[in-house]
């Protein structure tokens, strides 16, 4: 897999996939998409990056252990559910905030943060798996 063409194109593919994964995650509230599928796409990007540049390079670029990202995702999703404590509603009740921004309003909600948490969990878990598989693959060569 380590051809010159692949190594040259990989950063472009990875960057495009990462941006696309965020787009899919954000549009997921009302249309097909969401945190799960976004996290999958981002993890696939990391797998491609790992194939092209090696696992060590990816870990350096990520800076944080992917499993810690997954843990952070669970904490964020749980915290978004706990927010409804403050409006005297049951756990996981959604809270919406409409921010006027120039000509448009941007809705910010707790489900958004829940979905971002899911994104982190899926991304962290699958990136760990992909990197572990690629690392053992490198040992064999």
């Amino acid at each position, binding site marked *: 897999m380590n051809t010159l063409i692949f190594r040259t194109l990989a950063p472009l593919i990875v960057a495009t996939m990462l941006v696309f994964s965020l787009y899919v995650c954000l549009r997921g509230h009302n249309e097909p998409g969401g945190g799960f599928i976004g996290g999958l796409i981002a993890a696939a990007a990391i797998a491609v990056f790992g194939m092209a540049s090696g696992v060590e390079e990816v870990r350096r670029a990520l800076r944080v*252990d992917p*499993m*810690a990202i*997954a*843990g*952070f*995702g*669970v*904490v964020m999703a*749980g*915290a978004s*559910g*706990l927010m409804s*404590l403050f409006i*005297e*509603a*049951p*756990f*996981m*009740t*959604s809270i919406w905030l409409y921010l006027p921004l120039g000509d448009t309003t941007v809705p910010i909600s707790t489900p958004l943060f829940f979905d971002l948490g899911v994104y982190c969990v899926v991304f962290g878990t699958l990136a760990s798996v992909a990197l572990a598989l690629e690392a053992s693959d490198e040992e064999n060569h």
Partner: protein
Amino acid sequence: MSQNALPTAMIETLTAIGDWLVVLPIVLALMGGALLLMLRQTGKLSLLAALVVVGAIIACDIGLLIRIAAEGPVSMTMGRWLPPFGISLTADIFGAAFALAAAVVTLAVLAYAEIERGEPEQGDGFHPLVLLLLGGVTGAFLTGDLFNLYVWFEVMLIASFGLLVLGGGAAQLDGAVKYGFLNFLATTLFLLALGLSYGLLGTLNMADIMRVAPMADPAAMAGIAALLLLAFGMKAAAFPINAWLPASYHTPPAAVSALFAGLLTKVGAYALLRALVAILPASRDLLEPVLLALAIGTLLVAPLGAIAETNLRRALGFLVIGGIGAVLAGLALPSPAAIAGAGLYIFHAIVTMTALYMVAGLIERRSGARDSRQMGGLYAADSGLSVLFFVLILAAAGVPPLLGFWPKLLLIEAGLAAGGWGYGLVAALVANAVLTLIAGTRLWAHIFWRNAPEAVAPRRHRDGIGFAAAGLLAAAIVAAGLWPNPLIAGAHMAAADIVDPAHYVAATGLAAVEPGERE
């Protein structure tokens, strides 16, 4: 309700802060586990954080229990959607008491595990997995929704599978495959039953099923109940579907098997109690002969297995199974007293079996062996350990005045009152106690009393924390056995709510809507 107005779908009333106690133990466990995953490489800080989180969970469980004792079952439905559309968490006395016992033994196991964990084990994910397991177990005890119960079973399965393979020896992988496959089969059967009941009833909320099940086809409901009995029976390791338990519980470190012995099968037993007695009582009546056969078979065969077994922890595994027989005996007798006995037995078994496995781990460390044939003479080396083991064996057999005696007394009273097959159950319960005593005292004599085999010198270890953790659990068992009145009164109150679910249904807010009105 008028024809043209849609029924309300949202909960409009404000939620009391106290209701959060039903969801907090689960959320704390899961978020705490995630936090520990982030702190994985920090060594002692990870242990400290785990202890703090479990302590907070215990505080929430106690608060929940106090609230339930004062006001009846507590329920909260996620996201303001009215049940049965939103997922309800509903806790009654049994659920909250078991959740509390599970959190307490988890705290003891976390402290105990330190004697087995050195530098190489730092950052192996033990603490996050323990909290994930506790989250799954607590969720199973507190949920009010059958599909949600399935989710918690899966969470438990993932966490226990992770704990089982931690360290990754060949024997552990062998045990993990058997454990994983058979438990996976059980959860799949459970999922089948869920699909059938959703197709038949259109709801999976436990309180809602209680209301609509009597109107459904009794034969189909009995089929679903039989599937649930098979699935939960496998989870609870009832005879003859118990093979996975003795094959896997002795392979991981002692702390992990102590946690499994205390928590996993008890969740299966609790699910049986909830599904058959509380949710589908009519189907339970149809299945009563099966329950009787399972109970008597488990009560008699399990301690025989313990007598035949020489591997210490495998032998204890059979004692765990024997305890499940006592719970099944309570399910086979429909009276509230029997249900109280079964519930109290689950509570007792959570604490006793955990402590017993902890002591087994200490014995293995002292003797350097896993098979009781290679042990001996430990009494001279450590008399405190021998007293601890002996007390726990007596508690497991149900010798007065220890905690194990009182649930068996309730069960025997209920069996005598029932007459007929009840006498058979009473005989099996007594025989189980005698056989358990034989198996336990035989192990005790082999390990502590007889002379040590040649060339086996007891080793000295610094395992004071482990001894203290097991000792505190044993002290709790003795204290609860000497002052059992609050526990027995609580068990009777809980059993009354299981047999007559009016309070349970009212807590979810479903009583206001007549069954069938939604359609």
